[in-house]
Every structure is written in C-alpha cells, then in structure tokens.
C-alpha cells in the first residue's frame, strides 16, 4: 500500500460573480491521481499556473479540495475529524518556496523550531530544548542560532530553519513546494544535498515540486508533469528525460538551456503562450500549442493512460 494516494482530486476556485452574473470558476486542479511509495521521491514539474502549488496544499489539507480522495498511511485525510487530523499532521509536513515569509519575524528561531513539539506536547521542556539544538545541528546550523531572529539569516539559512521546524515532529512525508527556487545556485546545491541526506538518514518520502527540470531530475525517482491543472505525463525520472512521450514534456525538455556552449538544440516548436486557467480550450488543454494536434484532440480530453509504468495523457501517444 502506498504511503500517499491521491485519487481524482479536483480543486475549483469560484471567482467574482455578482447578483447579475454567474461566478466564473477557476479550475486549478482537475482529476489528479497519483501515489507515492514510502521512501520514494515523486517530482512534480510544471510552469507557473499549472496548479502544482495548489496540489501541494490540497494534499496536506491546507486547502480544501472540491472533490476527490486523499489517503495517507491508509487513512482518508479529508474525512478525519479535526483533532485526529491535527495528530495526523505530525506525519506530513511542508517546506515552502519563500524563505522570507515562511518564518514568523517576531519569534526566535528556537521557538519557531520547537513549535511542533509544543503543540503536540512531545517530551519535557528540557527534552524539547535538546531536540531543537539537535535539529539545528542536523540541518547545518549552530546551536547558538536558537536565540536569533529570522531576519538575521540569509535565504539559504532560513530554509534550513524551515526544514528543522518540519523535522521536529518526526514526519514520514515532506512536501517541498519550490523549496530551492528562491535560492542562489550554490546555496540551492547545499539545500538539495541536505534534502538527500535527510532522506537517507530518516527514510523520508518526498513530493518535490519545482519548475526546474534539472532540480527535479536530480532528486526524484519518478516524475509527474503538470499542465493547466492536469497531469500529462508520469514516469520514472530516467524515462521522462530519455523518452518523453507527451508533446508538452518534449517542449519543456527542449526549452532547457544546457550549461554547455555550442550544443545544437532542437526546438520542439512551442507556439504562443499558455492559456489562462480561466479559459481552457475544449478537449485537450494543450492542443492550441501542440505541434502534432489532430482533429480528435478538440473533442476528447485525454486521460492519463499507462503503458507499464509510463503514463501519458495524449491521444497521439497511443499510436
């Protein structure tokens, strides 16, 4: 049984609307299904507006999905009563993108990291202090940092504090929502290393979200590609990069600029811009930018179909 199972998840945001007109609906995620095994890293890649952050928050019930089911460790998260949900939260944590808004500027680092322990009454006050010191060391900071405030730290250091906070409650599963995107390349590498080391040491399971394909490839076992709220391809990291089947994945890969001058790049033609999520085309969302769109693509919305462990949502892929 997988650690996390997401089944047919949809999240709609009603926007505006007045007494005179029906509210428009923004469908941030549509019928997303995926599963993550214990100890595995599932990478989620997509550009802005594809719904990956919304998915991250829904999976942890930080946002209420419109429909669908989420099973974590065998339990249906969405139907748990408040107090049981709070307990269950110990097992699943999240690291956000912006190191500057992730920490309460008015609290000391030690208090921030200790919060989870306080909430769940884990250990005696002394034990908690010890644990905080230990956690700070584990993420590469100094114990003396406990008494400082967030604004005294750099972006990379703040992310370490955020990670320490998440680890305090002993989670099995961590969602990293663009956790390294706001960091400089050299710091990014440090934090990625930290994620990898922690995973090995604690057998953590990750949902690793990023728009940067290289980053995702480096840390993931399997990768899911999202476009306008749907998963369009899902396969092992190796497969996605060596044998991408969905035209969007192919375009994404060809758009990456390799840090090697003089390499001939094949541009998979990608016309125009992504549609606003408010006005999605009928049928396959991607067809208006797809170089190989057929007539059928306008009438049928392709579901994710699997050939072995490689899933693609494209009518063309079957051929």
């Amino acid at each position: 049984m997988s650690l996390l199972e997401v089944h047919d998840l949809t999240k709609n945001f009603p926007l505006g609307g007045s007494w005179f007109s029906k509210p428009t609906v923004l469908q941030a995620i549509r019928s997303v299904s995926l599963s993550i095994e214990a100890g595995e890293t599932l990478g989620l890649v997509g550009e802005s507006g594809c719904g990956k952050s919304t998915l991250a928050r829904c999976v942890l019930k930080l946002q209420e999905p419109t429909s669908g089911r989420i099973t974590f460790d065998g339990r249906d998260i969405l139907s748990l009563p408040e107090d049981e949900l709070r307990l269950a939260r110990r097992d699943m944590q999240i690291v956000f993108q912006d190191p500057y808004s992730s920490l309460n500027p008015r609290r000391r680092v030690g208090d921030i990291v200790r919060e989870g322990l306080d909430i769940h009454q884990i250990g005696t006050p002394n034990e908690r202090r010890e644990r905080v010191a230990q956690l700070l060391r584990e993420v590469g900071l100094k114990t003396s940092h406990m008494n400082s405030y967030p604004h005294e730290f750099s972006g990379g250091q703040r992310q370490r504090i955020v990670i320490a906070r998440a680890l305090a409650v002993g989670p099995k599963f961590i969602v990293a929502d663009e956790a390294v995107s706001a960091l400089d390349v050299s710091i990014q590498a440090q934090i990625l290393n930290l994620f990898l080391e922690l995973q090995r040491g604690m057998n953590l399971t990750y949902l690793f979200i990023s728009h940067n394909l290289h980053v995702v490839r480096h840390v993931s076992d399997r990768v899911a590609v999202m476009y306008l709220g749907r998963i369009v391809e899902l396969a092992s990291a190796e497969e996605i990069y060596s044998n991408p089947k969905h035209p969007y994945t192919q375009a994404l890969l060809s758009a990456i600029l390799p840090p090697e001058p003089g390499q001939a790049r094949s541009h998979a033609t990608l016309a125009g811009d992504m549609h606003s999520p408010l006005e999605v085309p009928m049928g396959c969302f991607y067809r208006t930018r797809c170089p190989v769109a057929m007539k059928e693509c306008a009438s049928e919305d392709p579901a994710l179909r699997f050939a072995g462990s490689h899933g693609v949502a494209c009518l063309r892929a079957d051929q």
Partner: protein
Amino acid sequence: MTTSDLGTPVLSVRDLRMSFFTSDGEVRALDGVDFDIAKGRTLGLVGESGCGKSATALSIMKLLPAHSGRIKSGEILFADKDLVHASPKEMLTLRGKRISMIFQDPMTSLNPVTKVGAQIVENIQLHENIGKRDAHGRAIELLGLVGIPTPQVRAGQYPFELSGGMRQRVMIAMALSCGPDLLLADEPTTALDVTIQAQILDLMVSLQKRLSMGILLITHDLGVVANYTDQVAVMYGGKIVERTETKRLFERPTHPYTRGLLASIPGRQEPKSLIAAVPGTVPSALNWPSGCRFRTRCAHASVECETVDPPLQEIEPGHLVACFRPQWER
C-alpha cells in the same frame, strides 16, 4: 545605427568602484570592475545575489538611488564620453536612445495605467522629432518586430491584458525603439516560464544582429550564459573574478568560484547523488573579508589569499582570472 566593424568596443568600463552609503555603513557594491562590450557582441555578467551585477548596470545608466548610491571612481567610456562625469542632462539624451535597459519583472517595469503603444510612443517622442502619428506607426512596427501578433490591436491594450512573455517583448520593443548602440538586460527572462525564455532570448539575439548593438546580459543562469553570450564575466563580492570567451569558460573554468558554480548546477551529476556544493554563504557586503573575498568559502585558500586581494590577471591569452591558486585540471 552605424555599420562600422563589429568588434569595436561600444562600452568600456575601467576600474569602476561604487558604494551605497547607508545608515549601517558603506556597502562596497562594486570594487574595481573592468570590461568591454563590443559592437554586435554579448557580454554575460553572471553571479549570485549581492555580487554587484545589477549594481553595474545601474551605475552605467546612472540610475543609482540618489540618496545612497555613489560612483567613487573609475571610468565608463561610451561614445567618447566618460559617463561617470556626464551631467544628468546628458544622461537623459542617452538613456532610451543610445543606451537602453530592460529589467527582470515586466509587470513592475511597465506603467500599469498607460496603454502599451503609448508607452513606446512616449520614448520615441522623447528622443526624436517625430509627430505622434509617425511615432505610433513606428511603435506598431516595433511590436511586430518583437513577434507580437496583431500589433495594432495590442498597442491599444494595457499591460495587465498581456501575458508575461508579451510584456517582456513590449519592454524590448520600447528599449529598441530608437535603435540603441548598447542594451543592458538585467535578468530579462528570470521571471518567465522556461518555454518562453528561449523565445525571448532568441528574439534578442536576432535583433542584435539587425542593429549590431552590444548587449550586457546579466543573469544567474549559466545555461543562458552558455547559449547566448560571446564573452562572460563572473562576479563575486563586487569584483570580477574571471573573464573570458564563453566557450573557454565552460571548457576551462579556473577560478574556484566559477568551478564551484558550474559544479553546483543540478543535472550534471549522478541523479540522487550529493552535489559538490560551494560551502558557506556570501559574506556581508558591509564587511568584506580581507584579501580575496572568496577565501572564506574556498578549498584552496592560502595565507597569501588572506592578506592580498588578487588582481585580475591574464593567465592565457584572452582569459583573465583573479586568483592566486587558479585551478587548471578539468
């Protein structure tokens, strides 16, 4: 727009030193920066936050915050003028006409309450003696030139009606409206989706060919540098630590920071392996370390590095490095 030989320098920066004077002390943002940008060529300026790359562009354009930024010394030679000593009036005639700049976030760089076409017209009329109708016609031409479909329609729209990629194109159109000799592009594609990035950069390159302008391309992305620059200068701590032809930099990076940076890029290692990251963090700009600024994070630092700040020296023809222990092996 002239047609003289490609390769003659359009901009020469010599020993530029610039600081921000703040209530916490002097922030030495630029401490001796040297480079040339040749006609029709692109120089990439690459580095991480706080290294001074944006400060360089702002200094060239003399757009530093009035109350705190000041060029302390050095030369910025452009069209036989030293911009350091240029009067504000002189700068006004240059900006937008002979030197243009485009910024990272097109949403905050465009006036949200003015139509897009009008913004381009404004720039044209500021520098050239053309009537409104002609200027408008040129604006539409420019929008078409930068790849915006139905430019007449788009010219009448506001920035919020356009996508990020299109807004960036509008910025480029505005920057090129008077045919500048030099374009400063500060992280022009960082805020854009990866699939749009390549489009915008390709556009810039093709326009560069047409106008034979020099481009200073500021970025933190080494992929962009590898594919869109002819020469590259790596910055750290307000100084240039390595400068050479782009190809050479990737073939033979010698400064430990450059090497560290290249090694940090994910995707070049074994998946799920530990990346050889550069340890530590950038020291505070209020208090650079003595000697070489990179030494606090360098695996090869020696005693010399602590006391003397290594000058930028040519270690092989066309390849300059500021380091006492340049690393040669691959």
